[in-house]
Structure formats: structure tokens, C-alpha cells
């Protein structure tokens, strides 16, 4: 598809969306930081305008027929040009709206959540930095630009997770997130290098159109898998999934923005962005499917035993991302992207609701929250329920429809096992979601609603703060309820408005998934919801499984062991030895020799003038002789 150049309006809107958050970062960080209110205002304006620009662009290009491309060459050498610019197509426009929308809502919400925090201005600076990197990532026209901003969102994630750096666990979690995602990015970068060496072209359009024909199948698979390594790290897929639950140490709005709705979804976005490229290699897509399935099931089980509300949503995020990869891996481009869209809405909502409770009761344990009277906070409770129901896939909420598209994509696969595994995941999701909802709605021993007095956080700030935080919830709740209806429209938009191929309609699939969800919810009702339930899951009677799930399948333990025995024990020791003996020894010797030569030469220099002149004439005479003799 030949791209067209943007007209003036499109150009300025896109550049506005890309540039304003950066401006806001610099302004807030370097100029207005001492003045908190002004900083928040700057940041809010600079995240609100990109949202308007994004909506305007999306609305204006609802029936677009060719991608819009604008590029500047940053450097050029050896037949390779590295370009910067933007690429507007349905996918990037949709993602742009998601990113700017959630980002704006979270910034509004943070006004209340971060009220009184001494680092509030810095926090807004970091949010702006994130918004800039994420928007630039989404609009990137080439892989190199995408990679640069991919790393920058990693940096902002690190800064925001460790925002309360005086908390040891927070700074540790920031480090862990950084290191684990970087591990995946190593693969991503190698993939870029493979493409650069073999194609010399990193533009996304070029890759999607030509890679399959210009690369050998082996190289194509290798580069796709290497790029997928970066995706695994960023989207916290198996085996690099344990950083995301730890990342919940950051402020809750950050978890909503970065670690559920947008940044971690960048992995899904990248695979969708390069979907034709990935489709060129069935093996690579197969791996995407496998990794997605494994991750989805593993993390659902972890969510079943967590009692920290943010941990539950973190595991759920990992598992839903896995679900998106299942959709993409099964060849369902729209399935992955649609689920990404709805997930952004309901998962951000879940986190923001949880933030209200955490802010109010100063605890992360939802059993404690429930006992302290969480039910009395009406808006967050209702929003939580709507979002939870959407997550489990209850009709007519958004999650139901997007889950159906993923499941139908899975049903197209020749092997029915994938579909069964997908349904199993849906059941587990319904179970852990309703477990939390029932605990919240039907607490066992209701204590007097002493939360305000005891913990005192919510009480000080009063109604204004509550409503600043509640307003974004309502917006997201409405979106969660309505996005389901937008499915067909989105599908035709993403397909460039072309008539869709009539997909096989699996009527029985809807029934099956409804049954599975009902089963999961019913089990949760029996154990947590009904009057007189012990509020203990069946897993607590199977200590082996409970421990396995609660310890995250011992993945962290495995990493520790690998780090201690393989990395430190083997590689580090050998490299240190090499460093001391060979490198240091060699360098020391070389340096001593060089310095000695320097001394010798400078002694020769300080000779008398006669000798200086003699040397000059002698050298020129030798040159003359050389000409005469050669």
C-alpha cells in the first residue's frame, strides 16, 4: 500500500501530539518543579491537547485508504538510512487514542491520588516523559525509532516504579523491571541488526511488504523470534513475567497507565504493527501462540491465590496479554488489537478503582479493605464491578466481545487443544475476578467503617479529592460498557474499510464460553459469595498447588539459582580471571611501555636549539634523499 504524505493539518497535529509531552517534561522538570500546581497544570494541558489531536485525527481518518507517512532522515551511511517520523494508519491512530486517553485520565486521577506527595511535580514530569516516549513509539515509522522510544518507555517505567525510592522494595522492583525487560530488548536489538544487515531497511511499511519476499525463511523466522524476545520482556510474557507483579510497588495510577493499559501492551502493539511480517513465518507465529498460552495459564493460577488487590490485577494483566498473543498467534490480527483496546479500558479502570480503595484504607489486602467497609464507596465499587465483569467476559460488556473474537480465532486452528486451553483460561479468569468481587461485596465481619480515622489518608483530603479520582472512573466505566458495541466498526476500520471476509460463525462457541464463565463465577460464589461461605478457595486445601501458585511457580527462585550458579559462578568468575590476568596485565604493560616512550621522546625534545634545527634539516634532507633514491 503506497503511503501518502500528510497535509499541513495532519502534520501539525501529529507533531503536536509527539512534541507537547516532551515540552511539558522539560518545563516541569527544569522550570516549574518548585511550583506544584503550575507543574500539574502544564502537564495536564500537555496531555489533554494530544488527546484532542488524537481524537481529531482518528475521526478525520475513519475511512482512510492509505497510510500517511512523514519522515526525516537522521543519518545515512553505507546505504542505510535511519529515519524519524510518523506513520498514521488505523492501528497507530487507534493506539494513539488509547495511549493519550488513558494517559490524560490517569493524570487527572493523580491530582487526587498524589495530593500532598512532596515529589508530585517530579511525578508529573515523569508521566510526561512517559507520554512522550509512548506516543513517539506508537507513531514510529521505523524500527530504529520504535526501538529508541521502546527503551525510553522502559526508562520512564523504571523511574516511576521506583518513584518512592526511599522504599527499598520499590527501588528493587524498579531495578528488576529494568534488567528483565532489557534482557528481552537484547534480543530485539539483535533482531534489528539482523534486519539491518540483510535488508538495509527498517521502515515498518517496508518490512511488512517486502521482508517475506526478500529474506530467506530461516532469517525471517530468526529475526521475528528475536524481535519477539523484546516483546516477551516488555509485555511480561513467560519466562520474563515476574517483573510485572513486582512493578506494582509504584504508585497505583502508574500501574494503571504503564503496567496494564499502555506500556506493557506495547509488546502486543509491536506484534500487530509487524503482523504481516510475523505472518511470513508460521514458526514465529507458532511460538507467539505457545508463549501466550503458557503465560496466560500460569499467571491466571497465580492470580487465584493472591490477596493483594494490585497483585491480582497484575497477574491478570499478564494473563490477558498472553490472551492477546494467543489471538495474534492464531492469526487473528483484529482479535489481538480489539482485546488490547477493551483491556486498556477495563484494566485501567480496575487499577484506578483499586487505587481509590488503597488510598482510602492504606492497605493493599482486599480482605482487609472489605472488612473496613469498602462497600460504602459507591462509585469505585460499581466501577470495579463493571470492570471485573468485563474482564471475566460477561455480556454485554466490552470484554465479552473481544474475548469472543480471540476465541473464534483460536477455533479456526486445526488443533482444538488451543481452544480448550483458551476456554480454561477464561474460566480461571472468571474465578479469580469474581473471587475478588465477592470478597469485596460480601465481607465477613464488618468492622465499623473506621478507615478514615485509622489510616487517615482519604479523610484529610475530603470530597474534592474523592471526586477528582472518581470522575475518570466514570469515564472509563462508560467506555467499558460501550466498547463492546464498537467491535464491528473497529474491525472494518482496521481492515481499511474493505468488506470483511465472512468468518465462520461459531454459535456453540458463545454458549461454551458463557458456560465456562458461569462455572468460574459460580465456583467463586460457592466459596466466597454465598452466605456462610468460608471465603477460602479450594486451593487452600491443596497446599502443594497453593504454594506453587503463591510462589509464582518458583520462577523467581529459578532466576536466583541461575544467577548465582551460572552467571556469577561460571561466567563472572571466568571473565574476572580473564580481566585481571589478560586484559589488566596486558593493558598495564602497554601503558607502562607507552608512558616510557613518552618520557624518552620528551627528553629528546628538550634538547638545545642547535639539535632542534639539526633534526629539522636532517629530516628534510632524508626526504630529499628518498626522492632521489626511490
Amino acid at each position, binding site marked *: 500500500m503506497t503511503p501518502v504524505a500528510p497535509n499541513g493539518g495532519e502534520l501539525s497535529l501529529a507533531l503536536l501530539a509527539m512534541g507537547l509531552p516532551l515540552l511539558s517534561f522539560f518545563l516541569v522538570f527544569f522550570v516549574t518543579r518548585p511550583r506544584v500546581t503550575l507543574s500539574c497544570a502544564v502537564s495536564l494541558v500537555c496531555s489533554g491537547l494530544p488527546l484532542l489531536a488524537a481524537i481529531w485525527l482518528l475521526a478525520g481518518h475513519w475511512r482512510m485508504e492509505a497510510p500517511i507517512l512523514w519522515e526525516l532522515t537522521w543519518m545515512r551511511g553505507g546505504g542505510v538510512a535511519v529515519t524519524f517520523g510518523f506513520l498514521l494508519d488505523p492501528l497507530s491512530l487507534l493506539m494513539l487514542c488509547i495511549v493519550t486517553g488513558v494517559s490524560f485520565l490517569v493524570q487527572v486521577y493523580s491530582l487526587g491520588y498524589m495530593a500532598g506527595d512532596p515529589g508530585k511535580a517530579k511525578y508529573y514530569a515523569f508521566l510526561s516523559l512517559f507520554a512522550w516516549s509512548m506516543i513517539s513509539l506508537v507513531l514510529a515509522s521505523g524500527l530504529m525509532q520504535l526501538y529508541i522510544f521502546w527503551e525510553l518507555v522502559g526508562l520512564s517505567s523504571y523511574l516511576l516504579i521506583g518513584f518512592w525510592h526511599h522504599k527499598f522494595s520499590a527501588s528493587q522492583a524498579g531495578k528488576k523491571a529494568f534488567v528483565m525487560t532489557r534482557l528481552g530488548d537484547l534480543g530485539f536489538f539483535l533482531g534489528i541488526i539482523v534486519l539491518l544487515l540483510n535488508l538495509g531497511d527498517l521502515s515498518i511499511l517496508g518490512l511488512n511488504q517486502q521482508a517475506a519476499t526478500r529474506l530467506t525463511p530461516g532469517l525471517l523466522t530468526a529475526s521475528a523470534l528475536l524481535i519477539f524476545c523484546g516483546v516477551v520482556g516488555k509485555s511480561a510474557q513467560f519466562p520474563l513475567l515476574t517483573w510485572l507483579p513486582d512493578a506494582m510497588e509504584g504508585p497505583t495510577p502508574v500501574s494503571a497507565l504503564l503496567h496494564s493499559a499502555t506500556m506493557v501492551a506495547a509488546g502486543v502493539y509491536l506484534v500487530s504493527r509487524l503482523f504481516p511480517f510475523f505472518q511470513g513465518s508460521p514458526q514465529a507465529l507458532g511460538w507467539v501462540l505457545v508463549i501466550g498460552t503458557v503465560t496466560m495459564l500460569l499467571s491466571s493460577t497465580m492470580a487465584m491465590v493472591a490477596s493483594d488487590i494490585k497483585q491480582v490485577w497484575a497477574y491478570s494483566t499478564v494473563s490477558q496479554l498472553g490472551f492477546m498473543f494467543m489471538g495474534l498467534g492464531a492469526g487473528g490480527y483484529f482479535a489481538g488489537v480489539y482485546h488490547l483496546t477493551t483491556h486498556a479500558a477495563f484494566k485501567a479502570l480496575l487499577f484506578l478503582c483499586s487505587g481509590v480503595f488503597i488510598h482510602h484504607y492504606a492497605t493493599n489486602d482486599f480482605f482487609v479493605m472489605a472488612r473496613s467497609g469498602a462497600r460504602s464507596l459507591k462509585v469505585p465499587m460499581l466501577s470495579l464491578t463493571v470492570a471485573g465483569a468485563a474482564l471475566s467476559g460477561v455480556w454485554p460488556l466490552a470484554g465479552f466481545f473481544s474475548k469472543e473474537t480471540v476465541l473464534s480465532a483460536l477455533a479456526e486452528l486445526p488443533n482444538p487443544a488451543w481452544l480448550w486451553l483458551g476456554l480454561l483460561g477464561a474460566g480461571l479468569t472468571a474465578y479469580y475476578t469474581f473471587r475478588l468481587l465477592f470478597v469485596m461485596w460480601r465481607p465477613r465481619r464488618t468492622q465499623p467503617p473506621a478507615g478514615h480515622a485509622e489510616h487517615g489518608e482519604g479523610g484529610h483530603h475530603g470530597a474534592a479529592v474523592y471526586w477528582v479520582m472518581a470522575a475518570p472512573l466514570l469515564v472509563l466505566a462508560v467506555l467499558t460498557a460501550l466498547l463492546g458495541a464498537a467491535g464491528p466498526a473497529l474491525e472494518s476500520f482496521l481492515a481499511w474499510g474493505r468488506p470483511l471476509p465472512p468468518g465462520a460463525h461459531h454459535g456453540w462457541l458463545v454458549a461454551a464460553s458463557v458456560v465456562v464463565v458461569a462455572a468460574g463465577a459460580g465456583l467463586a460464589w460457592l466459596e466466597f459469595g454465598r452466605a456462610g461461605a468460608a471465603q477460602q478457595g479450594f486451593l487452600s486445601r491443596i497446599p502443594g498447588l497453593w504454594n506453587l501458585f503463591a510462589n509464582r511457580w518458583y520462577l523467581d527462585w529459578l532466576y536466583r539459582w541461575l544467577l548465582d550458579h551460572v552467571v556469577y559462578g561460571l561466567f563472572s568468575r571466568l571473565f574476572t580471571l580473564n580481566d585481571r590476568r589478560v586484559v589488566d596485565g596486558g593493558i598495564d604493560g602497554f*601503558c607502562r611501555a*607507552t*608512558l616510557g*616512550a*613518552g*618520557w624518552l*621522546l*620528551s627528553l629528546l*625534545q*628538550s634538547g638545545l*636549539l642547535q639539535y*632542534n*634545527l639539526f*633534526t*629539522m*634539516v636532517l*629530516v*628534510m634532507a632524508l*626526504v*630529499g634523499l*628518498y*626522492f*632521489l633514491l*626511490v
Partner: protein
Amino acid sequence: MAGDLMLFLPEAACLLMALTLFGLSLPKHQDQRRVHSWAMGLSLLMVAAGLAGLFQEGHLFFEAYRVDLFSQFFKLLLAVALLLVLGICRQLTGVEERYQPEFFLFLTTCTLGMMLMVSAVELMTLYVALELSSFSLYILVPLRSGDNIDVEAGVKYLFIGITASCLMLFGMSYIFGAVHSTYLARIADTLPLWIHQPGAVIGLLLTLSGFFFKLAAFPFHFWAPDVYQGAANQVTTYIATASKAAAVALLIRLTALSAGTSLYLLDVLMVLCVASMTLGNLAAMVQSDLKRMLAYSSVAHAGYALMGVLTMTRLGYSSAMFYTLAYMVMNFAAFMVVVKVASQGQDLKISDLAGLHRRAPLLALTLMLALFSLAGIPPTVGFTGKFLVFAAAMRDGHFWLVLVGMINATLSLYYYLMVIKAAYLTEPAEPQESLAITGPTRALNYALIAAMVALGLFPRQVLELTEKAVRNIF
């Protein structure tokens, strides 16, 4: 006539400045501040004239004098260098009180000489212009107040300069003998026919001696350490910046005469290039005096500039021109810090910089950036310059030369980092009071930092200019 004046505009401004300063130096007692203000004003005028004359083209004085983008580029560079050097001469602490008006005068005549030099296309004109600038410097070097080291430096400079001049005249006589003309245009037409004769190449090479001397390239570098150390800091700054630019210009002009046809010339230039780089860097490592260290580093940088010149291609020449500009900016920044830190005009040991980051954070930052730039670390202009020169040499197939250059660049990092270490990490033995920095100095610092980074990141406009300039001579 008006057109001719337009062609001669920068030189005319310089001449005017020299005459004015001469007049100002006549009274017995003269207020140094006033002379300085005059000098600053006039040199600003000169920069304006240089800008106005940048795109002039034409011939003057019986075709002995050619004005084109190449010469005008260098004239602008020289005018800017003079302005910058004058900018740090407000407190002329290193020069004896009674000679201060003359100090400004001779800086101006020296600049005038070099301006004439970059436009000269006839051997005798060239020689006279060269001597005008050299003689001004011979006087400037011993003008320093205080101990007698300046006399030694002055004598050394004079003798080595004279010897280089002798060799140069000798070489010119060979060329004249071979070609029967002193006009470069004529020589360029005829010389390629003669280039395989030893006499012609020896003549050309000996003619280059005068400029090797100015550039402090091996084997004419012996004066550099003593003169850098012995001359007043401001004079050293001038020698280290402006006079290098003129030397590179003439090396380009003269090597272009051979049209790149002589392999012998190439061999010799390569030897001189490698010797300059290696000797300069090795000797710089063991210096404890900052200016001596910078002197040896300038020998090494002469080698890098030669690498661009010796390719004798348009790409090489334009990269050498860019390198000259880069070298001027970064070296000036380093020397500016020296001048400011040595507030009594004394010599600076590297260890004297201890704790500079606390005494004057801005100066320390400028120094660090300047030294990083000299060492060739991105994103500074020094990196871009070195990269362009190396790339040009590489494209011409001089792999080994580039390799040696890279090794040398790495070696040079050692002594540059030693200075940065002194300025940032070492604590002074006794606490020293912080240095007062005036507003204009602060602005100058910011401008230099901006220039070093901006030219490093966006060299394109300047490169296009140098490429266009090179087309005039080759």
C-alpha cells in the same frame, strides 16, 4: 573600484584596525581598557566585514590575489578567532604594562598577514604575507612580563621560524626553476608534468615547510612546547587557534597543486602525519604543565589535520577544513579556561586545576567538554571532525593510517582525562576561593559549549560550505 574594495573588505577592516591601534599606541601613557574597547569594536567590525565578504569572488593585484569562498571562509575564521582572543584580553595580566597597546597592534598585523596569506596565489605574495604574520608573532611571544623564560621561547621561535622560512624559499626556487613562474595557477598547469621529477616534488615539499612550521607538524614542532609555555597565555591562545587555521588553508592550496598525482609526496606526508600524531600524543602524556601538554596535543592534532590534507581529494580537503574549524573552537575553549584560571597570568600545572569544579563549575564544564572534544568523544565537534577526516582517509584507502590515527586518539584520551580528573575528582591541598566569573565570560562559556555540541550534532551546513569552498581550488 567599489567592487575591488568589496573584494578587499575583510583585509581593509583589518588594516583600518591596525592603523587605529597604531595611533592609539603612540601616546606615552595609554589606558589599556580604552585600547581594548577599541580593539573589540574594530574586530567586531572585521567579523562583520568577513561575513559581508563571504561570498565575494574575484582577482586583485595583477592576479596575485584571489578572493573566493575558500579564502573568505578562512578569513572569516581568522576574524572570529581574533575577536575571541581579544575577548579574553580584558585583564592582560601576562603582558607587561607598557607594551599592552602594541600587543593588540601585533595581534592585528598578524591576523592581517594571515588573511593576505589565505588569498595569495603567487609565491612571493605568499611569502611576504607569511613573514608579516610570523614577524608579528616573533614580537608577541617575548612580550610576556616576569621571568626570562619568554626570551628563550622567543629566540627558539625566531630561529626555528627562520630556518623554516629558509627551507621554504629554497623550495620556491626549485619550483620557479622547474616551472618558470611564481603564479600558482601557472604552476598548477605545468607542475603535474614535472611531478615525477624529484626536483619538483622536493621543491613543493620544502615550500610546505613554512606551513608545517606554523602548524607545528613534525619535524618543525620543536618550538611548540617552549613557546606555548613561554608566551603569555593570551598569545598562546592566538597561536594555538588562528595561526593553525591559516596553515591548514595554505597546505590545502599548495598540495592541491600536485593534483594528487605524486605518490612520493603522499608517502612523505603520511610519514609526517604519523610521526606528528604519535610523537605529539606520546610526549603529551608525561607533561605536568597544562600549556606544554596542550602544545604536544596540538602537534598530534596537526597530524590529524594532515590526514585530511594528504588524501588530496575534495572530501579530504573539506573534512580538513571542518577539522580546522572544530579544532579552533575546542582549543580556544580549553585555552580560555587556562586564561581565566591563571588569573595572574602565570603558567598552570595540571595539578593546579584541582577542585576547579567547585571553584568555577562553569569553567570546569567548558574545560571538560573541550577536552572531550579534543579527544574526539561524541557528541562534540571534535568527534565529528575526526570522524570526517578518518572517513575521508578511509575512502581513499588509507586503512593503516586510519588505524594509527584511531590508536592515537585512544592514547590521547589518557592525558585529556588526567586533566578532567584533576579538575573534577582531585581535591586541592588547601582550600581555594572560588573564581569570580563576569557576565560576558559566562555568556562566552555558554556560547562555546553550545557551539561545540551544536557543530558536533549538526555539521551539515558548515560541511556544505566547506565542500563548496574546496571546489574553488581543486
